[in-house]
């Protein structure tokens, strides 16, 4: 039997007012604008777009402001908003080889065609708090040097360089007309193929994937990875509207990409070679793409005839727990009233305790 309990309405309305006040903070401090979030909290915006699985900087900025900077909450807001929009179709696959590169590094080759372009990165900073940023007058408009020439128009992929020697597995589409799995339209099914896994990982929680990726490096997974190539830049998005019958470019998005190269001793079917793990995300989410690439590789255990011994290789474990909207929903639902459930548990425990006590007494006699 369900017993409806009412009376929370006024308390909830007032709670909304309290959260609005908390979000605003001290009114003497100027209110944050969406432009400020979008321009100065870019990496937060990028994470929200990636895990919210919707590329729209303005909406992500709004979600961050609304969620008071709680990115998991902001991701939830963006996912929820997304369900109100009609889908026009799917784009042509983006071509990261034609990326307008702003950062491109390889840990596998020092001298490689196109060179090492560091771009924007915290890697080479000292990780010391910079009090210049705390100064009242701010930082103004920092100036950047400009090279005489732009970055090479088309930079070969490191994996393609290895391909020439035949020492790395090739990535080709077996059947380019094949249906592409879509988690927004169909539930997860196991065994999950790579298209479904990559979609899941792309929108999966960065913290979860980071920990799993780390676990593979510490011995909970058998791979010895190299960051073959990491890229950041802009790619064109082409779409073929039904009414046109030919594709057109409809915009440009920033993506981060990581190609992980992993040692592989070989199997009955394959000679010793390098295998790959792939990471791709909206915006500048380098750490996420690296973790994703490690986990992608670990999840290929079945395909590569490796035994599945560790969490990162277990696709049900990884794919069912990677989504922070689901995870946060299920963890946080525990806050909802469970008054009746709890009463029945209480009765159960009381009767068990009574029996226990009686048995103790009998034993003592």
């Amino acid at each position: 039997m369900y017993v409806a309990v009412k009376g929370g309405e006024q308390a909830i309305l007032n709670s909304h007012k309290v959260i609005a006040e908390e979000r605003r903070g001290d009114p003497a401090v100027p209110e944050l604008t969406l432009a400020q979030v979008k321009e100065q909290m870019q990496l937060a915006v990028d994470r929200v777009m990636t895990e919210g699985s919707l590329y729209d900087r303005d909406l992500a900025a709004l979600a961050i402001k609304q969620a008071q900077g709680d990115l998991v909450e902001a991701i939830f807001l963006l996912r929820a908003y997304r369900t109100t929009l009609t889908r026009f179709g799917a784009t042509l696959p983006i071509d990261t080889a034609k990326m307008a590169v702003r950062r491109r590094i390889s840990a596998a080759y020092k001298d490689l065609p196109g060179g090492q372009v560091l771009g924007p990165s915290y890697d080479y900073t000292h990780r010391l708090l910079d009090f210049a940023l705390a100064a009242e007058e701010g930082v103004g408009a920092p100036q950047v040097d400009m090279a005489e020439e732009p970055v090479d128009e088309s930079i070969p992929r490191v994996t393609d360089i290895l391909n020439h020697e035949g020492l790395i597995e090739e990535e080709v589409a077996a059947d380019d007309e094949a249906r592409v799995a879509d988690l927004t339209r169909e539930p997860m099914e196991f065994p999950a193929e790579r298209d479904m896994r990559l979609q899941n990982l792309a929108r999966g929680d960065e913290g979860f994937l980071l920990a799993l990726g780390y676990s593979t490096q510490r011995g909970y997974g058998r791979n010895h990875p190299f960051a073959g190539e990491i890229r950041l830049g802009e790619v064109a998005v082409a779409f073929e509207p039904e009414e046109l019958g030919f594709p057109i470019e409809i915009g440009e998005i920033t993506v981060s990409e990581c190609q992980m190269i992993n040692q592989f001793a070989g199997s009955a079917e394959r000679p010793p070679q390098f295998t790959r793990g792939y990471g791709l995300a909206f915006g500048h989410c380098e750490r996420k793409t690296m973790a994703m690439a490690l986990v992608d590789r670990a999840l290929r255990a079945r395909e590569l005839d490796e035994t599945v011994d560790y969490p990162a290789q277990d696709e049900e474990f990884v794919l069912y727990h990677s989504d922070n909207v689901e995870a946060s929903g299920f963890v946080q639902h525990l806050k909802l009233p469970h008054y009746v459930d709890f009463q029945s548990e209480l009765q159960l425990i009381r009767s068990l305790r009574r029996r226990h006590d009686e048995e103790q007494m009998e034993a003592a006699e």
Partner: protein
Amino acid sequence: MALTSTPNGTTVDKTTVLSSGARAGIDTADLKPGLADPVHESQTLFRHLLDAMARPGRAVDLETALDAPTPLDPATAAVVLTLCDYDTPLWIDWIADTPPVRSYCRFHCGSALVERPDEAAFALVSDAENMPRLGLFAQGIDQYPDRSATLVVQLPDLEGGPERVLKGPGIATQAVLRAGGLPDWFWNDWRLNAAQFPLGVDIFFTSGRRIVGLPRTVLVEG
């Protein structure tokens, strides 16, 4: 690349389905406009469709001013524009399967047009007398009964046909429907359809600007 999953789980390649010729795009030269205010109009229409399904057998006036391509009635076009989109493969019967109607549905709904009734999430029937038997449409599967087809069946009238008494959820005691222009086998098929609940198709009868909902839960007498 333009692939769509159909209700019965098979895969339709839009590019082959659509290519009666080349991937020619849509001829927009004589295209009729769709809803003038798509968001609000389709919300209003959707409310009417819900009402029709919630009160089976009762005619609902869609009050739409839609200028539909021949041979579609305004109500027929309105139901299709409201319910169909990129994710819902649409089957069109042979009378309505004209270039203007195809263009209209592809342009305004973005639906893939499929050749076989069982591949469709929605079916547009303009010639009810010669429509395929109900069992030929997607019936849903036990895990996903929702993966069944919804039929939009345009009729010459909703009053002039033989009287049928309907019962079931949404009907207080009984409802009377006099749909005209249905094939002889229709109500027999409908009994079979209702018997396999939760599977089975749902139907909107349309005529002029009005519709009648016939969800799979409806039982027919007489």
